[in-house]
């Protein structure tokens, strides 16, 4: 019998119950055997004044501060999959979001990175991961192939993010990048929009490789085999996003890729808060050994130590996956 934990509080769930005994989360519609968690903040006090009364549109009723959709630092673990997200050292709030989940012998990870020049970017990324994860799990549970499920999930995320636009954001509607990975017993399927990435980190030396290519000029050049001059640093013209999710985005269809690992290893899904500092697959593979949780934590620390200029989101999925029977927490 599988152990299922609550997506919100990680407490053990009784499959026949409608609500989590520990936190009261509504479980109707969540079939047994599926479980996911995201870095989206639960109801908490206002960061500005400690007030607990918020308007429906997310502003503190006392001091007017907007409620952050994310949290400064979150560590997640679901069925052997681990994730860490961190505000970094320079950003005022965490606009990166991550969600990880399990559905039987399938693992899922989604990362969205809020576009910092857009309005309420943290709401965009968190709405994105939550909508994508909900759709992915339902589609996979309904028997859809991973690639189709990823396309459906990306569309759901695009709709959720676009819906955040309002009259106050006419000039810069909430926007984010998107990357998701589905790991089954035999393959890894990736879908992405923007410059958040997935990597295959093989246990076997020489096998590690990137699984995505950025939707930016730099990403297209790299995919075409044009090596970037490291002395140029991050040229904003080259790294500017060509595609994103948001009300002002034209093309939100994900690029997808399927990959059959030759041996054991790990799938890394991350935002540029990590890959701006370390982007070489072979180096990533050897830099942080250990359990998925240890690896995620170590890569997060590496990004912080390197400067922590941006928000960080990292998910690590082991291949092969842990048996779903094993306890997860």
């Amino acid at each position, binding site marked *: 019998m599988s152990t299922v934990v609550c997506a919100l509080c990680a407490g053990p769930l009784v499959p026949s119950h409608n609500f989590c005994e520990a936190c009261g989360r509504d479980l109707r519609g969540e079939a047994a055997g599926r479980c996911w968690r995201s870095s989206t903040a639960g109801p908490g006090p206002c960061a500005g004044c400690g007030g607990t009364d918020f*308007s429906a*549109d997310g502003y*503190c009723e006392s*001091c007017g*501060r*907007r409620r952050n959709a994310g949290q400064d630092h979150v560590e997640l673990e679901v069925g052997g999959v681990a994730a860490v997200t961190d505000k970094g050292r320079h950003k005022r709030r965490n606009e990166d979001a991550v969600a990880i989940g399990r559905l039987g012998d399938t693992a899922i990870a989604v990362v969205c990175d809020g576009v910092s020049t857009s309005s*309420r970017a943290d709401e965009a990324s968190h709405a994105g991961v939550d909508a994508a994860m909900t759709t992915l799990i339902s589609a996979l549970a309904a028997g859809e192939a991973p690639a189709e499920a990823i396309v459906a999930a990306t569309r759901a995320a695009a709709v959720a993010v676009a819906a955040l636009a309002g*009259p*106050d954001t006419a000039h810069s509607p909430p926007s984010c990048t998107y990357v998701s990975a589905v790991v089954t017993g035999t393959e890894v399927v990736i879908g992405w929009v923007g410059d958040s990435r997935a990597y295959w980190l093989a246990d076997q030396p020489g096998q590690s490789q990137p699984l995505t290519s950025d939707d930016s000029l730099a990403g297209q050049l790299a995919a075409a085999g044009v090596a970037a001059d490291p002395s140029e640093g991050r040229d904003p013209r080259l790294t500017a996003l060509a595609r994103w999710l948001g009300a002002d985005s034209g093309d939100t269809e994900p690029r997808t890729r399927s990959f059959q690992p030759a041996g054991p290893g790990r799938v890394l899904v991350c935002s540029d808060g990590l890959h701006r500092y370390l982007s070489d697959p072979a180096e990533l593979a050897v830099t942080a050994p250990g359990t998925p949780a240890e690896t995620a934590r170590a890569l997060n620390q590496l990004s912080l130590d390197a400067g922590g200029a941006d928000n960080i989101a990292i998910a690590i999925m082991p291949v092969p996956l842990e048996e779903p029977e094993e306890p997860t927490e």
Partner: protein
Amino acid sequence: MTQPSFDIEVHHNEYLPQGGQIVDAIITVSASGSGLPSPLAAAVSTAQVIMVDCSGSMGYPATKMSEATRATATAIDTLREGVPFAVVAGTHNAYLIYPPGGAVRMVPANAQTRAAAKAEVSRLRADGGTAMSRWLDLANKLFASQPAEIKHAILLTDGKNESESPQDLARVLDECEGRFVCDSRGIGQGWIAEELMKISSTLLGEADGLEDVSELPAAFRAMTETAMGKAAADVSLRVWTPASATIRFLKKAFPQVEDLTARRTEVSPRIGDYPTGAWGAESRDYHLSVEVASAAVGDELLAARVSLVSHDQKLAERLVLAKWTDDLALSTRINPQVAHYTGQEEMASLLREGVAAMQAGDEQTATAKLGRARKIALESGHTDTAKLVERVAEVVDEPTGTIRLKKKEDVAGGIEEIIKVRSVKTTRVKRQAE
């Protein structure tokens, strides 16, 4: 009554520099939709009282009284069928001249009552003093018996409110506030702009002066038509501001400048209602200025939540946001709407102060203020106002905008009061990409 649909737009630069605390926004409120009645449809209940100055001065020249009589008849003809109305003759006292019989009551407009009312009006004679508080007090009592949604009054005067103390008028205005809307018009040379502006400010109407009494019938028709087109009464602008924020001011900015800051009714410590009066199919602008506690770069604050409410029902809502940034290109951007109305508010003050200086014999101050006001008027496309200034001053040097006051005998009587009463009228900024 079907509510018209209201829409709010916010124009402002939401970016503040580090340490910035002032958020200025122009709030555009537009009412439209099928809920608005056509001028002839009796969809909304309306009542109207016409107050005609019958003081002694109205008899000189004789055209004053005859045009006032004609204008009142025109207004009566413009009333929608079935609208309750009454006519008050104002002197140092107030007399209900229609409906007759002495009882304080109003009667619905129809062919028979219109004819009877016009017959009574044609018998009006000029005789007596001027005590506007008596007129307004009678109008207030007349309206008190009316269940109508829109209660509209017209006040016509040619003189100063001299048969009573300013305190009498202030006290009655307090009693009338929120009970009915009053438009006022001055004719001739003896009326005082400040008095009419005080009445119209308090009673949320429009004050104006007419240069020629022959304009009166058209003015009365226009005021009555506008009143018949109103579909929503008692609409308030509700403003939520965060704890530790202060509302520096809330002004109506278009079509006239009207400071509403002191008109706040506290709903809760952070929410206040400001009266906006009755609405037809129209669009107005309000200028809100909020001082907020400074926050760190990257922080986002809801500086104000602006909504329109009627009978505690929310009709529309918009947010006024503030974001702190270290990007000077963002924080120094000036919103064209805010800049335009800041200029219009300055122009209004300069016009009033300039005319006051002129009347006090301070030529130097008057020249400087009126010259500057004319310059702002021209720059903002307010040619009517520029022309008004040119009625009291001649342009010495157009490029610099230098003016010279005309000799007193060359200035038409009453024009100074017209400049003051029209100083609050604003133009709209030409809509362009912000």
